[in-house]
C-alpha cells in the first residue's frame, strides 16, 4: 500500500466524466443519471438519482435476479421450511448454502438449510409442462420429511411455459392439511434486480404465513427484527444483545428464522427495520394490519447499536428497560472502545468504497467512521430512490412497467387482531420529543459533500474508480473481489463477509475493526513489484564480476 501514490485532487465532476467517456452515447446518457455527485447534506432539493431501472445488456453488472432475491435472500435463511426450486437444476444448485446464512437447528432440530431441493426439469417437462412433476415432487418431499411448510420457487422457464405453481401449491396444501404449501412467481426475468424477488417473497410470506399462530406471547418488550439475514452470525449477536437487555425478539425476517416466528409476528409491539431496501413494505403492512408501529434501526457499528437499543427503550418508555439497556451498553462498550482506539492508530485517514446490494453500503459507513475511515464512494446494487434520498421521495417515484410486474398486495386492518400499540397522544408525545417513526433519510445525507454515489455500479466503472481514487479498501461481492485485488487493493466482501463475521452488534464491531486493520495493513500489497521491476535499469555490476 505504502508504495502507492495517491492521486491528489480529482474534481468529482471530472471523475464522473471519466467514468462515462468510453460508453456509447445512449449508455452514457443512461449511466449519467445513475451517477451523482453527492451534495445532499444541506441543500434543499438534492439532485435526483435514477435507481431500480433496467440493467444495460452487455454491461457487466453486479446484479443478480428476482429468484436470487426471493429464494436466496429472503427464504434462504428460514430453516424449517422445505424450499423446492421448480426449474432446471442450476438455479437451485447455485442458491444452495452460498449466502453464509448461519442457523442453529434449535431444540426441535428441524433444519433443511443444508439441503437443496429441485424438480430438475428436463426437456420433456418444458415441452409438456411441469405441473405434474412439481406435484409429485411436493408429495415426495412431504412423505420424506413431513415439514411444517413447503415453498415453491419458479425459475425463468416455468414462467414461460405457464405452469400454475400457485394452483399446484393450493391443491397440495389442501390435500395435506398439516403442511402449509405456497409458491412464489419469482422468475428471474421478472424485475430488474434481486429487489423484485424480495418483494415477491415478502408478499407471499405475509399472505400465507404471518399471523397464523394465535397463541399469545407473554414476554415483555416484544419486537420484530426486519431485514436481518444472519450472514456470518450477525443475527446471533443481535439476539444476544437484545436478550441481555430483556427485549424479546418474536421474529427475525429472516435470519435464523423458523416457520413459527413468522406465524407469530403479529404479537410484537414494535417492528425494527434493519435493511430498509429488502423489507420496508412488510413493516408498513404489519402496521396497517395489526397496528404495530415501526422504526428504522441499525445494528452495524457499536455506536449505531447503542443508538438503536436506546431508540427501542424510548419506544417502550419503561424505566427498568431503559436502565437495563444503559447497563448493557456500559458493560459492552469499554472493550469495543479499547480495540477501536488501538485499531484507529492504523486506520485513521484511510479510505473505503462500498458497493453492495441494499442497506449495507450505508450501514457499514458507521463502522468505518468509528475507525476514522472515510467513504469516498458508495452505491447500491439494487436500491430504489428512497434508499438514497430518503422515504420522503416515495410518493414521487414513478412506477414503470418492471415495477408494475410485481404484485402489490392490499392490506387492511385485521378485524380481530388489529390493535394500535400506542394511542395517537402517545405517538405525538414521542414525536414531539424528536422520535421518528417510519423514517429513513437514506444514504446520501450521511455521505460527505462531493463523494460519488453510483447506482448499479458495473465492473468497468469499479475498475476506473479504483484506478482514479486509489481507495485503501473496496467492499463489494464475490464477483468483484479478485479483479479489484489484482489492482493491488484489498477487497472485503460485504454480502457474505468472506469467511468472517459476525460484524453486527458490539462483538461484531470488534471483529470488524480487527478484520479491517488486517486488510489495510497486510504486507502482501507491498509485494506487487519484484525488486527488478521496481528498478529495471541495470546500473551496477555484481561484485563477482
Amino acid at each position, binding site marked *: 500500500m505504502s508504495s502507492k501514490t495517491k492521486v491528489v485532487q480529482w474534481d468529482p465532476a471530472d471523475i464522473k466524466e471519466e467514468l462515462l467517456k468510453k460508453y456509447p452515447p445512449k449508455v452514457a446518457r443512461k449511466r449519467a443519471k445513475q451517477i451523482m455527485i453527492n451534495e445532499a447534506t444541506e441543500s434543499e432539493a438534492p439532485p435526483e438519482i435514477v435507481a431500480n431501472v433496467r440493467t444495460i445488456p452487455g454491461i457487466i453488472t453486479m446484479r443478480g435476479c428476482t429468484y436470487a432475491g426471493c429464494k436466496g435472500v429472503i427464504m434462504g435463511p428460514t430453516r424449517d421450511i422445505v424450499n423446492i426450486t421448480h426449474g432446471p*437444476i442450476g438455479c437451485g444448485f447455485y442458491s444452495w448454502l452460498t449466502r453464509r446464512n448461519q442457523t442453529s437447528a434449535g431444540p426441535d432440530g428441524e433444519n433443511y438449510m443444508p439441503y437443496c*431441493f429441485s424438480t430438475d426439469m428436463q426437456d420433456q417437462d418444458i415441452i409438456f409442462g411441469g405441473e405434474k412433476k412439481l406435484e409429485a*415432487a411436493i408429495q415426495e418431499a412431504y412423505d420424506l420429511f413431513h415439514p411444517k411448510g413447503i415453498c415453491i420457487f419458479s425459475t425463468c422457464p416455468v414462467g414461460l411455459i405457464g405452469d400454475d405453481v400457485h394452483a399446484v401449491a393450493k391443491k397440495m396444501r389442501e390435500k395435506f392439511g398439516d403442511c402449509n404449501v405456497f409458491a412464489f412467481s419469482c422468475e428471474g426475468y421478472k424485475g*430488474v434486480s434481486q429487489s423484485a424477488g424480495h418483494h415477491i417473497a415478502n408478499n407471499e410470506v405475509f399472505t400465507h404465513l404471518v399471523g397464523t399462530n394465535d397463541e399469545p406471547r407473554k414476554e415483555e418488550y416484544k419486537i420484530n427484527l426486519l431485514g436481518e439475514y444472519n450472514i456470518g452470525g450477525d443475527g446471533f449477536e443481535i439476539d444476544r444483545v437484545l436478550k441481555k437487555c430483556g427485549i424479546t425478539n418474536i421474529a427475525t425476517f429472516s435470519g435464523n428464522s423458523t416457520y413459527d416466528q413468522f406465524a407469530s409476528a403479529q404479537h410484537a409491539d414494535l417492528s425494527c427495520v434493519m435493511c430498509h431496501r429488502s423489507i420496508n413494505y412488510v413493516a408498513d403492512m404489519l402496521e396497517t394490519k395489526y397496528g404495530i408501529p415501526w422504526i428504522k434501526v441499525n445494528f452495524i457499528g457499536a455506536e449505531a447499536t447503542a443508538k438503536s437499543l436506546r431508540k427501542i427503550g424510548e419506544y417502550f418508555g419503561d424505566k427498568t428497560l431503559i436502565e437495563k439497556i444503559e447497563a448493557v451498553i456500559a458493560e459492552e462498550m469499554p472493550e469495543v472502545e479499547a480495540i477501536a482506539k488501538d485499531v484507529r492508530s492504523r486506520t485513521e485517514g484511510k479510505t473505503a468504497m462500498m458497493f453492495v446490494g441494499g442497506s449495507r453500503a450505508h450501514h457499514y459507513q458507521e463502522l468505518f467512521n468509528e475507525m476514522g475511515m472515510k467513504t469516498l464512494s458508495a452505491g447500491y446494487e439494487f436500491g430504489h430512490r428512497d434508499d438514497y434520498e430518503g422515504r420522503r421521495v416515495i410518493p414521487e417515484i414513478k412506477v414503470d412497467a418492471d415495477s408494475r410486474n410485481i404484485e402489490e398486495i392490499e392490506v387492511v386492518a385485521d378485524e380481530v387482531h388489529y390493535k394500535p400499540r400506542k394511542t395517537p397522544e402517545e405517538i405525538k408525545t414521542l414525536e414531539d420529543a424528536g422520535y421518528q417513526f417510519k423514517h429513513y433519510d437514506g444514504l446520501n445525507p450521511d455521505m460527505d459533500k462531493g463523494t460519488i454515489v453510483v447506482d448499479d455500479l458495473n465492473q468497468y466503472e469499479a475498475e476506473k474508480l479504483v484506478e482514479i481514487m486509489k481507495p485503501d479498501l473496496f467492499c463489494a461481492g464475490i464477483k468483484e473481489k479478485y479483479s479489484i485485488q489484482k489492482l493491488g487493493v484489498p477487497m472485503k466482501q460485504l454480502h457474505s463477509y468472506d469467511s468472517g463475521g459476525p460484524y453486527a452488534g458490539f462483538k461484531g464491531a470488534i471483529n470488524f475493526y480487527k478484520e479491517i486493520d488486517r486488510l489495510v495493513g497486510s504486507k502482501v500489497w507491498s509485494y506487487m513489484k519484484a525488486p527488478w521491476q521496481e528498478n529495471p535499469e541495470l546500473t551496477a555490476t555484481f561484485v563477482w564480476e
Partner: protein
Amino acid sequence: MLLRHTPTEIKERKSLVVNPAKTCQPIGAMYAALGIKGCLPHSHGSQGCCAYHRSMLTRHYKEPVSAATSSFTEGASVFGGQANLIQAINNIFTVYEPEVIAVHTTCLSETIGDDLKQIVTKATKDGKIPEGKTVFGAPTPSYVGSHVTGFSNMVKAMAQLAEPSSEKNGKVNIIPGWVEPCDMEEIKRLCTMIGVDTTMFPDTSGVLNGPLSGEYKMFPDGGVTIKELKEAGQATGTIALGEWCSADAARWLDSKHKVPCTVLDMPFGLKATDRFIDVLRTVAGVSIPDTISYERGQLVDLISDMHQYFYGKKVAIFGDPDQLISMVEFLRSIDMCPVYVVTGTPGKKFEKRIKELTSDMPYECKVKAKGDMFLMHQWIKNEPVDLLMGNSYGKYIARDEDIPFLRWGFPITDRQGHQYFPTVGYKGGLRLLEKILGLLLDRKDRDSPEETFELVL
C-alpha cells in the same frame, strides 16, 4: 447432524432431486469460453444466471471471472432476445474491447427459441461486429444434460470455428476437458517434453491462475487464439480427453475436416496417464524421454510404499463422469475399493464403464448416473466407507458420518490452492496419493488409543 433429515431407508424418488451432483449447462460453457484468448463469455438470458455462474466460478478458481449478460426482462422473454443481444454486442465491443464474444444460451432463451446463428448474422449485417473480431455461440439449454454437457457444447462450437484447408500444420489438437488450469499446464508440459506441437482448447492456464501484480487484465495472456482455432482443421490429429467433455468436438473435426481423432480417458492416475503418453509417443513418432519414465517410476514407487494403507479401503466418490472414470480406475489400481459412485450427469455408458472397472472388486459397486448426493448419503448410512471424495458439498456428509474427505472436482469453495497443483499426469498422481494417505493416517492418529499411538507409521 447437519443432514439430520436424511433417512436410512431408501425410497425411490421420481420427481424430487435432493442435493444434486450436477449443475446446469451454461456454467460449463462459460468456463470453456474463458479458455479462449481475449474472449468475453456472454450469457444470453436474464442476468441472474450469469451472476450465479460467475459467482460459482469465482468461488472455485479465486480469480476474476468476467462475463456479460443480455439482461432479459419480461419484454425480452416474450418478444425474443434479439434486440438485447445485438445491443449487448455493441456495448461489449465499445466498452471492453474483447477479441471474441462467446455466447451461450440459458434455459430462458432456449425456451423462447432464440436462434443464436441468426442473431449473430444480423449483428454482422448491422455492422455491430468490428472488423477482425469474432462472435460465436453454443446452445446450452439447462434442462438437458448438465454443466458437463454445456462445457462440451461450447468446446464443440470452438471446433466449429475451424476453417476448411487442404494444408496440414503438423500440430496436434488436444482437448483437455474440464480440468483445472494447472492441469492444462501440466498436460502441455508433458506434450512439450515429448516434443508434440499442440493446440490446446480450451486452455484456461494463465487465465484462471494468473499472478497478482497490481495490474488487472480483463483479458489475461493465456488461452487459445482464434487463429489457432481456425487452423484446428489443419492438425495431424486430435486427442480428446474425456468422452463426455471432449469427444463431440473431436468427432466433429474428424467428420468435417478429416482430422483423425482419438478419445482417451482423462489422464488421472497411472494407467490413464500411461495411455495418454503412449498415444503422444505414437503421434510424435518418437521414443519417450527418460525424464517421463523417471516421473512414472516415482509414482509407481510411491504406490508400492503406500499400498499397505490403501489396500481394501472403501471409497464413496461423486463428481463428473470423465473425472470419475479415471479416478475409479486409479483407485482400483492402488487396490482401494470405490463402492459408491454417483454422477448427476445422465449417461448409461457411465454406469457400464464403472461396472467394468470395478468388476474385480471384492464388493459390489453401487453406481448411478443422474443420481444425487442424498442417495449417496443413504448408501453410506447403510454401509459406511473409509473415504469420501468429491466437491465441497460433500463436507456435510463427511462431518455427519465422520468420514475422511478428499476435496476433488468442481466446485471447491472451501479450500484453496487447487488451481495451482495439478492432479493429472504422474506428478498429479503423486499429489493425489499424498493427499489420500494424509487423510487416512490423520484419521488413524486421531482414532488410535494412547497405547497404540505410534511415531513411525
